[in-house]
């Protein structure tokens, strides 16, 4: 074997695999099937013009609560939400490592709300939202996947498909028709105008959580995640601020955050728990949330203002507005103007709609005419719980009651019926049996806006309170889906002249 032959073969080998590797990266981008939001945010980050002064790392709450373009507009510093939905705290150091390849900001903000999700279970979306949005051969990505999977119970997990995600996505042939899929083959072309801000434009009212100063237990896994993140910050000598985003926090999570705060402070870092600053931020729990984990756009505006001021006061952040290298930031801000207006309008509409429905609902107990009463109810703001122990006899099928009942799929041939309807759409129904159990409302991951309805003999329980009224065989409860309160509780009595008496 001549020296020339060996050199030729080595060069050929390297070149061959370089071509395969390059094509593999492109093909992987074409087939990737995780959320486009994550890919746009993560890929868009590396193509941001100029230096970024502040990066926020975290989960979906970061994406919802802080608008980097508003900060640019108000003070001229640059910031970016490097976050993915369902992120977990032990991954944030890999987010930071990956982000440092293209930008080295002066402030790193880590949202540790994500520590509450750290446990032994592999959550596919938690990992893939980020790992499948980063170049397949990124070393930080490989380390991140390795760390995430092998610190959890990976026994039933298809491990190779996390490292080489084409193994999972390679059959998504239909998605190839989407122009988005092909746009990722040129990573440099992906621009993220919103800088990682994607607010909630819906509304769910909540009751303000009760604050506590008690300390909870940090699990071994959570402590390990925290320690590794702090070690990373120590080793990289980066300027860090740890926060917990303003959520509808449960007492248990608040106790955990108090302990997390103690640990972080003991390691010489600063931790700001925004769940202790609801008043300072000006949060109104009746209007500012989309769900338990996310503020809506109205809440985001309040938080963004507060956070901008906090950063400006704490750090000496530069103003780049006159710098030509940052001209695209002004363009992006202007480009989002219409979208911002539509976000605000949609959120405000949702709030107004819910408040108006609440007002109407609160007047229901004053209405005595059944026909006037029930026409108010056919919309998604109310849940109707109907219990019929015995179907009224001697009524014609044309009787107003059956007209009302038919909207809910109840007919005179049934002997009994119970059920719950959101608007006119059944959540649960049961004909001829008087036992159901269901949950009303979205739980948002925490269960604080969940309402259990249980109907058995002599019991009609909502959120633990019994509303059963056995005076008459037909009982209807009107429940405010948004504010999670019982608005009206009536029983019906029938008279021969088609008049229905509502008894409360």
């Amino acid at each position, binding site marked *: 074997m001549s020296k020339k032959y060996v050199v030729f073969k080595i060069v050929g080998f390297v070149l061959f695999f370089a*071509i395969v590797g390059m094509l593999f990266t492109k093909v992987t981008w074409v087939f990737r099937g995780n959320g486009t939001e994550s890919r746009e945010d993560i890929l868009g980050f590396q193509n941001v013009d100029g230096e970024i002064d502040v990066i926020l790392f975290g989960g979906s709450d970061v994406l919802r609560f802080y608008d980097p373009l508003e900060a640019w507009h108000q003070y001229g510093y640059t910031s970016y939400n490097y976050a993915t939905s369902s992120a977990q705290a032990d991954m944030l150091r890999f987010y930071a490592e990956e982000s440092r390849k293209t930008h080295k900001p002066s402030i790193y903000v880590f949202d540790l709300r994500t520590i509450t999700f750290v446990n032994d279970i592999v959550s596919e979306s938690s990992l893939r939202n980020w790992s499948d949005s980063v170049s397949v051969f990124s070393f930080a990505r490989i380390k991140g996947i390795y760390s995430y999977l092998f610190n959890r119970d990976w026994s039933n997990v298809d491990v190779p498909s996390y490292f080489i995600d084409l*193994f999972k996505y390679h059959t998504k042939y239909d998605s190839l028709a989407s122009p988005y899929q092909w746009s990722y083959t040129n990573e440099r072309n992906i621009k993220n105008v919103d800088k990682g801000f994607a607010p909630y434009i819906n509304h769910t009212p909540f009751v303000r959580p009760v604050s506590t100063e008690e300390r909870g237990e940090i699990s071994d896994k959570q402590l390990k995640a925290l320690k590794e993140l702090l070690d990373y910050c120590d080793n990289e000598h980066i300027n860090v601020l740890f926060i917990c985003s303003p959520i509808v926090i449960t007492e248990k999570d608040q106790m955990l955050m108090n302990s997390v705060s103690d640990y972080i402070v003991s390691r010489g870092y600063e931790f700001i728990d925004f769940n202790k600053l609801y008043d300072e931020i000006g949060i109104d729990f009746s209007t500012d949330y989309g769900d338990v984990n996310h503020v809506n756009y109205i809440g985001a505006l309040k938080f963004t203002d507060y956070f901008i001021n906090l950063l400006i006061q704490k750090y000496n952040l530069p103003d780049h507005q006159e710098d030509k290298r940052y001209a695209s930031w002004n363009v992006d801000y202007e480009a989002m103007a219409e979208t911002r207006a539509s976000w605000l309008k949609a959120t405000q509409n949702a709030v107004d709609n819910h408040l108006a429905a609440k007002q109407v609902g609160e007047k229901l107990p004053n209405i005595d005419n059944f026909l006037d009463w029930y026409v108010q109810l056919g919309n998604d703001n109310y849940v109707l719980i109907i219990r019929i122990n015995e179907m009224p006899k001697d009524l014609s099928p044309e009787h107003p009651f059956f007209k009302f009942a038919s909207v809910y799929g109840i007919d005179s041939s049934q002997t009994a019926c119970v059920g719950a309807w959101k608007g006119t759409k059944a959540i649960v129904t049961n004909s001829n049996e008087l036992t159901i159990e269901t949950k009303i409302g979205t739980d948002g991951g925490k269960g604080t806006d969940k309402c259990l309805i249980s109907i058995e003999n002599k019991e009609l329980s909502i959120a633990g309170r019994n509303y059963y009224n056995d005076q008459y065989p037909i009982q209807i409860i009107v429940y405010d889906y948004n504010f999670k309160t019982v608005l009206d509780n009536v029983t019906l009595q029938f008279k021969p002249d088609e008049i229905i008496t509502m008894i409360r």
Partner: protein
Amino acid sequence: MSVTSFLFLGFLLLGLIVYYIVPSKIQWIVLVIMSIIFYLIAGTPYTMIFLAVSTLIAYVSTLYIEKNRNNSTVSKKVSIVAIITILLNVIIWFALKGSSFWILGSKLLHKISSKFPILHPLPVTAALGMGYYTAQVIGYILDVLWNTSTIQSNPLKLFLFVSFFPQLTVGPISRYNDLKTIYKPHKFSYQNICLGSQRILWGLFKKLVISDRITVIVNAIWADTNAFNGIWPWIAVFLYPMEIYTDFSGCMDIVLGSAELFDIHLTENFRNPFFSRNSQEFWQRWHITLGTWARDYVFYPFMKCRLMVSFGKNCKKRLGKKWGKFISWSVSMAVLWFVMGFWHGSVRHIFGVSLWFWSALFLSELFLPVTKKLTSFLEIKTESFGWHFFQSLRTYIIYALGVVFFTSSGLRSALDHYIVLWNSLGQLNPWTLFDSTITSLGVAWRDVNLILVGSLCILVADVLREKYGYARTWINKQSVGFRWAIWIFLIFIVLIYGMYGPGYDASTFIYQGF
């Protein structure tokens, strides 16, 4: 650990690194360790004892044979020892892998008299690749007995011959003389790595892109012949040979390619079987190592045994030279085909392999003079492409109709399949091939196109192989750009269109069960 799994590819890569790093004298020990690890992951660990027992039997018996070979006082004893040890191996195989035979036998006896109990399978799992290594061990003992092979005096080395990991699950059935190079030092060769990897890639293409797609269609048709009637059962019949070919030969490519990475060249098991002009040639090109094993260790010894020699003489005396020879050949072939069917381990295989192909060969030999005269009378150009194509098609059809037994779960089900085929003859409607029926078989048109284009690629590769020995040999003579384009294209076709990963349960290799 399937040979199509990422685990296997990782295992192979790690093993290769260690294999070429360690001193060449102990490379074979690396292979022993790899074989043990492979077995422990792929099989039921405790069943490795059966491999050890077979190795021990072969080791002790061959030592005895070698020691007493020239001792005339115990020459009979040597043969008896060989027969006993072969029987021991067959009994172990029969007890564990051939349970369907003795369970069926006990059921039949029970029907005759209820005094006979119905037997149940042993509560012991059969060893991985038992049919393959048992055949290898038997071949080795006979080779030593007939003095056509040297003996292996190191039991660990003999164990490696029995358990060499790439061939353990699906063969090929190697001869000791052919596999002896396994113990020799092997230098790292870039060419071996390239050729081995290319062959593995080609095998993955056959298995994951073609075979597993055809499997979906064939299984869906047989699962509901009421919905898929008319032409569809016939489609299943004629697709199945392609399925089993791409499955088995694909697996062979992975196995032979894996061995090639270690500079070990195993015996070929396929040589373009669908180019065969008749069933006899087909079985010389299909599962070659089983065919040659049965020929060398069953057919020839049987033909040469005293009983058959005297039977042949008697036949010649009574029926004349031509018919006497024919009868004697037919009986020996019946034994060979019975053993081939028996090796597959069930009664349906006795029908599907033994009876079917013995009948095909018997009839073709019987009518050979007639067909020769007919082709001569009709002045058929027997070397023309058209005649070759007709003969190959005829052979394909004979094989396709025979392996219906393979697609069935039992004899009864196979007969049901034949009834379905017969009944559907009157309802053939080729138009259903072009409407949306095929999409209700669990595949899309895309899959059908892939099967067609993939089959065309296999055909081209087989033609190149027929002409140049190996398609790879032809490819290697091409310019770098063209060569690389072919391999890169193949890599991405397998990556994108291979049926693997989450959501897929790649079917195990059909011949892995034997």
